[in-house]
């Protein structure tokens, strides 16, 4: 038994109307997101109150109550309720270069400036001729940087032993080398782990599982003490090179598992379509599989990069003076000793690490959004 007439035929098109007032706009957003219920309103008010209580104190500590300039400790020792930025300013050169000879520090400046320019070129997605940027960054720049930092008697640049390298520039060097080498090595390991050749697969599995199963500090000590034992004395790797190898190996194992996740989430049809078109394995991998797999795991890869950047602070256990170690040394300087010095130093170090890691996270989010926009 039908409750309405059985037949119906539309006579005219239903007109298009704008949405009701309260479903869009700023007020609607606030209502929907901040005050949607009593509980939600309480949480909103609580958070705002906490921020209103804490933020002004923190800002005052870091700005109005801080000591911005002083030549030594006493000024800071008298003002104990503010940061002592004068200390950071006084130690700035040491924090940047470690014990790198003062007369030669311009070389580090040049390497950093060129590196920054090339990285911007590479990361700017619409930049012209990125292939050239990549060639310069991955081939020309490492050679140039090595010659400049290490020195060359041929060019009349005094040799600076890596024992003297330190500070921010060593932290950045470690991070860049770790990132640049661990991703390709991780991709190779991930492909190796899925290889149909048992020998390749076993080698990859053993490497990945062994490295993942050991703490980073163990890997660092092993790289530091075992590498020289395995290699002839003339090839004994440099004191800085050993922890760099350690960080690349460690990060590559995690990267490999991240990339493997991306490879596994690809549809079999993609492989089949590539094979059916006659693409051989290297071309299929480079042109079809990796571009998709890597795009899928950008968040995980960047997560690894961020972890790697943090882990660079551990190279100090094998005697490398990275930025954090330089900060530790600076804090111990009796000229500046005082109650606010340690807080100031570590807050500054925290801001430094946060700035770089947050930059990486934001850039990756931007890349994801850009790629998503193009394809959907």
């Amino acid at each position, binding site marked *: 038994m039908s409750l309405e007439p059985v037949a119906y035929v539309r006579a005219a098109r239903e007109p298009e109307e704008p949405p009701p007032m309260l479903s869009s706009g700023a007020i609607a957003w606030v209502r929907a997101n901040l005050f949607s219920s009593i509980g939600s309103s309480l949480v909103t008010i609580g958070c705002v109150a906490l921020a209103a209580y804490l933020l002004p104190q923190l800002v005052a500590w870091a700005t109005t109550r801080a000591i911005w300039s002083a030549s030594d400790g006493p000024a800071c020792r008298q003002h104990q309720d503010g940061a002592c930025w004068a200390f950071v300013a006084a130690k700035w050169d040491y924090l940047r270069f470690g014990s790198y000879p003062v007369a030669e520090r311009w070389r580090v400046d040049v390497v950093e400036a060129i590196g920054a320019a090339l990285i911007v070129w590479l990361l700017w997605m619409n930049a012209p001729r990125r292939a050239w940027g990549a060639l310069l960054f991955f081939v020309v720049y490492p050679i140039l940087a090595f010659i400049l930092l290490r020195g060359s008697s041929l060019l009349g640049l005094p040799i600076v032993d890596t024992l003297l390298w330190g500070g921010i520039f060593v932290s950045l060097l470690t991070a860049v080398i770790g990132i640049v080498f661990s991703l390709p090595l991780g991709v190779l390991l991930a492909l190796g782990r899925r290889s149909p050749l048992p020998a390749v697969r076993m080698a990859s599995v053993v490497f990945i599982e062994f490295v993942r199963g050991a703490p980073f500090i163990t890997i660092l000590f092993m790289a530091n003490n075992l590498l020289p034992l395995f290699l002839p004395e003339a090839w004994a790797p440099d004191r800085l090179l050993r922890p760099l190898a350690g960080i690349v190996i460690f990060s590559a194992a995690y990267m490999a598992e991240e990339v493997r996740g991306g490879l596994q989430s690809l*549809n079999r049809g993609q492989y089949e379509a590539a094979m059916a078109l*006659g*693409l051989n394995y290297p*071309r299929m991998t480079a042109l079809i599989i990796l571009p998709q797999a890597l*795009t899928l795991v950008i968040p995980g890869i960047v997560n690894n990069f961020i972890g790697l950047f943090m882990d660079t602070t551990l190279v100090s256990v094998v005697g490398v003076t990275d930025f954090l170690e330089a900060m530790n040394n600076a804090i111990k300087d009796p000229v500046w000793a005082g109650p606010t010095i340690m807080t100031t130093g570590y807050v500054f170090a925290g801001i430094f690490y946060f700035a770089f890691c947050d930059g990486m996270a934001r850039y990756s989010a931007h890349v994801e959004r850009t790629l998503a926009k193009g394809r959907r």
Partner: protein
Amino acid sequence: MGDSSAGADRGDAAAIRFTNVHKWYGSFHVLRNINLTVGRGERIVVCGPSGSGKSTLIRCVNRLEDHQRGSIVVDGVELTDDIKRIDEVRREVGMVFQNFNLFPHLTVLENCTLAPIWVRKMPKRDAEELATRLLAQVKILDQANKYPGQLSGGQQQRAAIARALCMTPKIMLFDEPTSALDPEMVKEVLDTMTALAQEGMTMVVVTHEMGFARQVADRVVFIDRGEIVEVNAPLPFFDHPQHERTRLFLSQILH
């Protein structure tokens, strides 16, 4: 049928020659003693119940699946484990899949030019010219710079056909090309395939579209439980099926 003359070479009149082919998935005997010769320019429609082995059969032609016994000769090249021969065959055999399998990270145009550039070593400009011509032929030139995810199913499948044609293949394989499409998009894909058949392309098509089979096929091959049960020209195949299993199958799909 039943043609087992060995000694296939480039001068072979056959485009594809299956001789006593067997295939197993583990211990499951999925293809049993397949003998089939596809002539150059011939259009074959393969049909059969799901799980009968019809997709496996055409996937053996470009070695997406390997066979364990018997021989498959494609365009004069016998398929073995030799990767060079497999590549040689794949260059000459285009394939269209049920789920399109377009590369989602590339535009439609890039999907089409990829293989000509990297496999045929064609200059980029020539490859784009070729792709433009073929995209116009399948009537989606206006979508050339979009990504596959922005296209309808029918458009994606036509793009996939254009992509395969860009390798100027001698043989085209279609693996249920309309099965994943919404009903209103089936016709545009079938029309494209019909036009291709009229140009004389050698085609092996796995499909349930019996109207297409009637109109386009030279022969219809019915496969059931891993074996070829009946082969005939479309008219006698549909109007006077001989084998009991063929009759049962046709009665089920034609209502």
